[in-house]
């Protein structure tokens, strides 16, 4: 305690000498030696937890506060998102959220969503979602063309009704009028991957992060992606956006894909509740930006094979606001997909 106080004092003194604006200095003083509760809305293990634990030491370094990581699993990440949103607005509670899922839950007015995505104070984004379609190497489904020209439907595995593995499958299937059968009800995406390896299913939609190692060692192949460009360690994977021409209703397809893209762009942001004093938000945003660009952190994230895609807090606020705005037609489709009515 005392040591931390002294550390904080030293930091304050150092900063004071360099002549920061008075406001930032106040925030700095406020955070020195305090504890920031960092909520992870999932159990330990897995991407959100890992990103948070990787980042925590650097946030401590740049805020002068102690970061306490608290796992608050439940309701598919919504419990933690609720807890962040409704935390005291003193700036001592932040957390990472599943941005795209929280946006879609809000749109579909899922019961228990006690937050407004656009009203969070975003510190920034750790990573954007890149969604990929994964198949087994030898089952004949090597590209979207294969799926379109196949006589029998492709069987896709998914977790719960309305989960992202399910929503992606039905939306893309709807846009391109694919012959497909979506088998949902798997307990976790790990179970879906195991079913894929066994040949019970032909493919699955999932996050790039969890598909990478399987693709690198040849267990899976990634045949489509929501992003654009090369995937490190895997190579060139066609982007779904290159296929919009093949959809029946090109205009609607483009619109749906843009909305999907906007959702994926929300990705994994770090958020704080609304109503925090502006100087503290600015201070936290600054600390987050510095942490995300710390060479030490970058090296660690790289060795843990964690993709980063930094966006600052102000940008994130726009991205999140954009994601909630879609044309009524697209919104109807998205909501139907989430509710399992598509």
């Amino acid at each position, binding site marked *: 305690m005392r040591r931390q106080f002294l550390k904080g004092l030293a930091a304050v003194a150092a900063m004071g000498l360099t002549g920061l604006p008075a406001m930032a200095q106040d925030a700095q003083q406020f955070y020195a030696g305090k504890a920031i509760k960092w909520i992870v809305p999932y159990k330990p*293990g897995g991407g959100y937890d890992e990103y948070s*634990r990787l980042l925590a030491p650097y946030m401590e370094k740049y805020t002068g506060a102690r970061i306490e990581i608290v796992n608050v*699993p*439940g309701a598919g990440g919504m419990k933690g998102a609720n807890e962040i949103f409704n935390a005291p607005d003193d700036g001592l509670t932040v957390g990472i959220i599943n941005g795209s899922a929280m946006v879609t839950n809000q749109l579909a007015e899922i019961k228990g969503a006690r937050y407004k995505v656009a009203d969070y104070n975003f510190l920034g984004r750790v990573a954007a979602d890149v969604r990929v379609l994964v198949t087994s190497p030898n089952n004949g489904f090597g590209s979207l063309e294969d799926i379109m020209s196949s006589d029998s439907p492709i069987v896709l595995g998914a977790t719960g009704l309305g989960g992202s593995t399910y929503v992606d499958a039905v939306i893309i299937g709807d846009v391109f009028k694919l012959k497909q059968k979506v088998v*949902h009800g798997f307990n976790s995406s790990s179970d879906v991957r*195991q079913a894929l390896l066994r040949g*019970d299913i032909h493919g699955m939609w999932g996050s790039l992060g969890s598909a990478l190692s399987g693709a690198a060692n040849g267990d899976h192949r990634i045949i489509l992606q929501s992003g654009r460009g090369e995937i490190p360690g895997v190579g060139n994977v066609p982007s779904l956006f290159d296929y919009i021409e093949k959809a029946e209703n090109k205009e609607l397809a483009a619109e749906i894909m843009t909305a999907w893209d906007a959702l994926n762009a929300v990705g994994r942001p770090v958020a704080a509740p609304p109503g925090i004093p502006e100087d503290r938000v600015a201070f936290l945003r600054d600390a987050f930006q510095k942490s995300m660009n710390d060479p030490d952190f970058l090296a*660690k994230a790289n060795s843990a094979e*964690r993709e980063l895609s930094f966006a600052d807090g102000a940008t994130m606020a726009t991205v999140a606001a954009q994601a909630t705005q879609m044309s009524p037609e697209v919104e109807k489709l998205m909501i139907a997909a989430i509710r399992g009515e598509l």
Partner: protein
Amino acid sequence: MTIIEGLSSGFLQAISLDVLPYLVVGAVFGLIIGVIPGLSGHFAMAMAVTFLYSMEPGAGIAFLLGAHSTVAQGGGLTAILFSTPGTGQNAATLLDGPPMRDRGEVGLAVGAAMASCFLGATFGAIALAALLPVLRDVVLFFGPPEIFVLAFLALTFVAVLGKEDMTRSLIAALMGMLLAMIGLDNVTNTARFTMGSLTLEDGLAMVPVILGLFAVAEMFELWAQGGALAKKMENPLSARDTQRQIFSGILAAFKHSWLVIRCSTIGTVMGLIPGLGSAPAAFVAYGHAKQTSKNKELFGKGNIEGVIGAEAANDAVEGGALASTLAFGIPGSSSMAILLSGLFILGLETGPTMLNNHVDIVFIMIFTIIIGNLVGTLIGMFMVNPLSRATSIRATLMVPVLMVIIVTGAYASERSLFDIGVALVFGVLGYLMKVLNYSRAALLIGFVLGFAVEKNLYLALLLDGPLFFLQPIPLGLSILTLLFLGYNIYIIARDRRRAVK
């Protein structure tokens, strides 16, 4: 790297000064976490993972897995001494451990439990090593149809557990299955039995349910009866007697080596199956021990075979559970998800990369399980003496202290106040069940397996149609299940006829 090279290199690394100290520290840490009710291996690993960033791969793995592998041992210790299962997988130990304590055989029970843990873990680890060349095929053996039939087979063990009073056992088991239905069904997106509560949509968590059913219920009973935990003892055992008992307990585990091997096999196989976990493994092994024993009627009244079977199985799970994580990088449980995170942090790749290029790391894991459990056994034995003194303290002093620890454990595993309520409600239920002679083990088996049975039945039907059980492997398993069930029904009917005569 060949397997033999990997084995020798892994062993040398595991006992080297760069790794062994971390392994020992991890094992002790896991033992302590295990002793605290409600805190499981998953919690121990989540805490340990924070320290990995500055570690070398070998040391990090040994530390992480060491912490995970001894948790069941610590949990067994508290299950026997305080009737409080340290973790879910020790719940089966409660059936025969505490009655032995009440007879003044604390040392015997703990010695047998510790040695069985070690033997079971070693068996599981060796089985994992032996399966390495075919590990990928073994993991892919289990799909929804197979898991459904196996979970159903495990469910039929209720028949063995509650033989004495079949009606009550079936009621308990079906109630357990109903409790498993609580929550949001992810197949239809329907909330079942949640009464509008958002918290209940995630279903009941296993830790507070087990703590309530067994530990809290035990506290209620102790409170109602008064006296001390070790009921029939005038004076606490002397240190020397305890020590002597521990050694005969260890000997007993070795004497029952055939039982240990069979129960360890059950544990390893159930560990291989994703989503089943170690709590049902211990109960199924317990059922098996009871079925094959000559002294069936002594089970539940302090039969050492019950302790040996349950403890051997719950540590043998470890080896099996590692398989899918190592072979494909697919975690079968939340603990394995953390292990996988840890491996990533240490810069290690799982899957074929690890099996082909880093077999030595796999063997470090295997030796960590073995050595970690050895350390746990040795230290656990020294903990018995001081801890067993506490069992002679009178209830009015002990109950409040233990209740605080239990409630904290219920809260800590998911940081949920709601779970404290769950533990207390199930405490009342457990107490009533005990008084009215309903099998809590049957309820727990129904609760844990009901979920797996339902989910996999749905998937099997969707993937392979209504005749999924006619495929060769599920068919074989189904026939086995029917034979087993038929045999048990026959035995029960025969016993009843004899009793009538």
